[in-house]
């Protein structure tokens, strides 16, 4: 099948890609843009490891086609830090040992980021619901929830000052 020229906005930058229509966003990010932070998990929509944000909403890159996402703002884990300054979620995950192998972490943090960008003071239950599409085989989830909760409370403390 013929390759096509497509334009994707990823982490605030526009990229020109020359790819076949059946290439998924996950494959394009990793293979054509060298953004390997987004992971291959199940590739069938059953694990959440490939979670990225499109216009702030978590979706699965393994089931998304670049051809449909031109003009949308895509955020990957590489877009969370600002230069050398970690995103609060990255710092919290690191400090609270919320990652063991780290494979689910990119997806977890992006799902959490989307929640915290919309919900100022989520309950642990709401955090659990927001992360319900991201599986972790290592941690048992508790430290991941702790790390998100800590950022949520930091966020709301700053707000109330």
């Amino acid at each position, binding site marked *: 099948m013929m390759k096509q020229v497509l334009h994707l906005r990823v982490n605030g930058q526009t990229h020109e890609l020359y790819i076949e229509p*059946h290439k998924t966003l996950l494959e394009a990010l990793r293979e054509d843009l060298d953004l390997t932070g987004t992971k291959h998990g199940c590739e069938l929509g059953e694990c959440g490891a490939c979670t990225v944000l499109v216009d702030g909403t*978590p*979706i699965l890159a393994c089931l*998304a086609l670049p051809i*449909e996402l031109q003009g949308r703002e895509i955020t990957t884990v590489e877009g969370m830090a600002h230069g050398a300054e970690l995103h609060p979620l990255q710092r919290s995950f690191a400090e609270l040992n919320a990652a063991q192998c780290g494979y689910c972490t990119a997806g977890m943090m992006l799902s959490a980021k989307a929640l915290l960008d919309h919900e100022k003071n989520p309950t642990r239950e709401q955090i659990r619901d*927001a992360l319900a*599409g991201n*599986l972790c085989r290592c941690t048992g989830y508790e430290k991941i929830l702790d790390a998100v909760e800590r950022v949520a409370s930091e966020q709301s403390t700053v707000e109330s000052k």
Partner: protein
Amino acid sequence: MLRLPPFTYHVPRSIDDAVNLYAQYGADAMFVAGGTDLYPNMKRRQFEPKVLIGLNALTELRGITNDNGITLRAGTSLAQISAHPILQSQYAALAIAAQLVSTPQLRAMGTLGGNLCLDTRCNYYDQEFWWRKALGFCMKKDGEICMVAPGSPRCWAVSSTDCAPVVIALDGRVRLVSPRGERVIAATDLYRDDGIEYLGKARDELLTEIILPPADGVKSVYLKLRRRDSFDFPILGVAAALRFAPNGEIETARLVLGGVGSRPLECIESARLMIGQKLSRDVIDAAAEAAWKPARPLDNTDSTHGYRKKMARVYVTRALETLAE
């Protein structure tokens, strides 16, 4: 790695354009909206369309209109369905069902129309190409024999949609558009009792709208049985919709089970038992007993068919108890 097979991707500018494109490409083409069912199936080589007609950009296929009942365009996302205030208050079972589908990411991508047209599922079918080739292909895809019921002349793949039992229980209708024109049918007629030919619409018909009548005091609920609290398809779904008279007697009743056959199963006898009665313990028990009998799940999804059949009675009881409050 699981890569998609090659295809060309077309973006129609209107519903008519989409339908005409399909007519042009015929058997080589498939419609795709969110792709959350079709793309995994294509990765497993259950489908290999050479042409995809993408529906995501069609604003004509998105939105909810509240006017003498409620019209839901088929491309509306499950996330939007679950969050809509009128659905939550007047057609509660549909908001509940949409919220219980899969995960947040998939609900953002997936559509109501897609959930209604979901492919039927089976442990022997929903496997990668190499797994199916190693075991031997099954009747639903490339083989001759149903692996679950080897002596059977038909396929027993299971209807796995959460929204279909609800749309049927709410007296929903669906609009189908094709080169031959449009038709509106009762939602129950969208389904056939067969694991392969499970849809009552022609391949070239596009599902565009789901039409629900005025709620008119109908109380509804949907309960879903699955192993985990997320991700999983229903291994049993119970959709119940009742209208109560001021004196507490049941005026209308519809009870539909999902996940127990190749199509949603309506419990006609249970509904009949409830009409004109108050929702007492005895009536609930009788309705649950009548619903349990015709449910005949097979061993082709998660859990054992014996457990799923037993749970039909339990979940119908719970659904009716919820509506009795």
